[in-house]
């Protein structure tokens, strides 16, 4: 368990790093597509966090095995009996399936966001002739200025 104690801050740190980096990309890129990619990384990092919660040391994927099947016996051979007895279900230790389910949903949501976002980007490119955030801002600022000058 000591190794796990050392690893814990490391893996969570990586997850949170991806979170911050994804946000940074999503907030500062000039290219709209890169923004979306950053957003995707950010969403995925949420998934990383959930999956980190799901791992059980020595566990296996949450597909139920018969306790006397060869695969289950191979798994059991790596662990001590007390551990299996305490944390196993019918003689096999599994990782927690619930975060997997949640993250399946989250991945789908990410893909949906990406599709809609890209569709909007395609329309922006057709309308504004650019997907550069700064250029679009400049165009809109100019339009606003034109309107105000028309008034004056």
């Amino acid at each position, binding site marked *: 368990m000591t190794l796990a104690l050392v690893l814990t801050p490391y893996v969570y740190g990586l997850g949170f790093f991806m979170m911050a980096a994804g946000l940074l990309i999503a907030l500062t890129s000039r290219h709209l597509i890169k923004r979306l990619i950053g957003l995707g990384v950010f969403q995925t990092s949420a998934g990383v966090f959930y999956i980190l919660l799901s791992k059980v040391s020595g566990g296996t994927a949450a597909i139920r095995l018969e306790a006397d099947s060869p695969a289950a016996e191979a798994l059991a051979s790596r662990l001590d009996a007390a551990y299996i007895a305490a944390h196993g279900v019918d003689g096999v230790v599994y990782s927690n399936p619930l975060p997997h389910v949640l993250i399946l949903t989250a991945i789908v*949501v990410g893909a949906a*966001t990406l599709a*809609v*976002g890209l569709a909007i980007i395609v329309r*922006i490119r057709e309308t*504004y002739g650019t997907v550069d955030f700064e250029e679009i801002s400049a165009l*809109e600022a100019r339009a606003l200025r034109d309107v105000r000058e028309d008034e004056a």
Partner: protein
Amino acid sequence: MSPFAGAQFASPEVIQHAPALLIAAPLTAACVAALSPSARWAWFASLGGALVSLWMALCLAAEVARSGAVSYAVGGFAPPLGIELRLDDLSVFFCLLVSVMGVATSIASASLLRLELPERDHSLMQAGFMLAFTGLLGLTATGDAFNAFVFLEVSSIGTYALVAMGASQDRRALTAAFQYLVMGTIGATLFVIGVGLLYAVTGTLNMADMAERLAASSSDTAAIAGLALITVGLALKAAMFPLHAWLPGAYSAGPTMVVAFLAGTATKVSVYLLIRFLMDVAGGLESAGEGLLTWLIAPMAGIAAIVASVQAVFQTETRRILAYSSIAQIGYVLLGVTSGSVAGLTAALFLLFTHAMIKTVIFLSLGAIDHRGSRLETLAGAGREAPWTIAALALAILGLAGAPFTAGFLAKWRLLGALADDGRIWAVVAIAASSLTALVYCGRILETVLFRTRRPAGATISEASPAALAAIWFLAASSVWYGVDASALYDLARQAAASVMGASP
């Protein structure tokens, strides 16, 4: 005493399944709308879906009034294994809000769409609208934290595209929609990470279960960080200052029916979730929930009330004025929520409902009279060409300004009273300042539509269609009615507030 006490709107068999039908009906309607060959059938589908939802919401209100909170185990699995739909006084209040606004928007939608988009897009627009409606209803009804995230996305994903469809009138709709998408997604993801942290601490996703287990582990930084993430994520969605930047663009450029519905519901439901998480789920973690309310939300809400109102004064586009006023109103509501008393929360809920009605009326009527140019001047003298619509608009604007004998006045009055009773003079001052500023922009709008005559060339205005008028006047008349006799709505709000505050004594 709930106004629904003793009422029964359907047979027990139907009522038993009302929580599921509430959500499944508009979902089905969305699919039917997408399948339907013509715009007319899509409209019927959306109208049907909205009406069934309203019916179910009424059934649930009666049921909750009769026998307390309703719990529905979807799939027959009891929580925490299965997903629970849970409706107490608070969620029923918001269900009613969403479904009433949904029905009104739906009634008006056909004629609004005809003015703005080519007919081939209508059925998909109706489908998208019904999906957003489904998502918002799901948000209010679900008792499961992760399920709330899913419905948050159901309501958002379609909405992004719907807002972007405003591009046929105003190309800024595209950039606004993109902005909305980025900020909305960040908000939703922060929310889901926050839920993940709470899950890491409690091991469960069911909100009620979560609340119990959180109460047992009262000083856990992970739980508090989770609440902070949820709060900030939802505050983004609720357009709380300074996280509101997506809202003016989205409101000013999106198609009318979308904006009318969003303005009346979307941010409100986020406020509901905020209340749910901070006052109910975090009820056991008193210092955390209260700390966030007192030190994060309350000051921001106070600033929002003033800054957004002043910003509204300086806007030149009609819808932007209204968008900033919405941000200010969210500020008022959150000030009420943070007051920490039943009276304050009641007033906040009451204000939220009346403001939803008012804003829906305003946006619907602006769309229905074919208000093309976005600038306020293009509305000059609209009162002569569209007297019926403009009369309703004027009533709503008066309500927004808080004129006596409108629901808006009563709501603000109660809110100010509640805040004063709690000794929050600074909040009273902030709301008073903001309301007075509101008089300026409301006065400008009123003056333009009623008294101005010079209108820029090319701006045409026509009376709304009968269906749209019916929807607009229904809401406008209710807002006046609640200004005179607010007891029904007020009792509902008080019941809702008491149910939350009771949960966190």
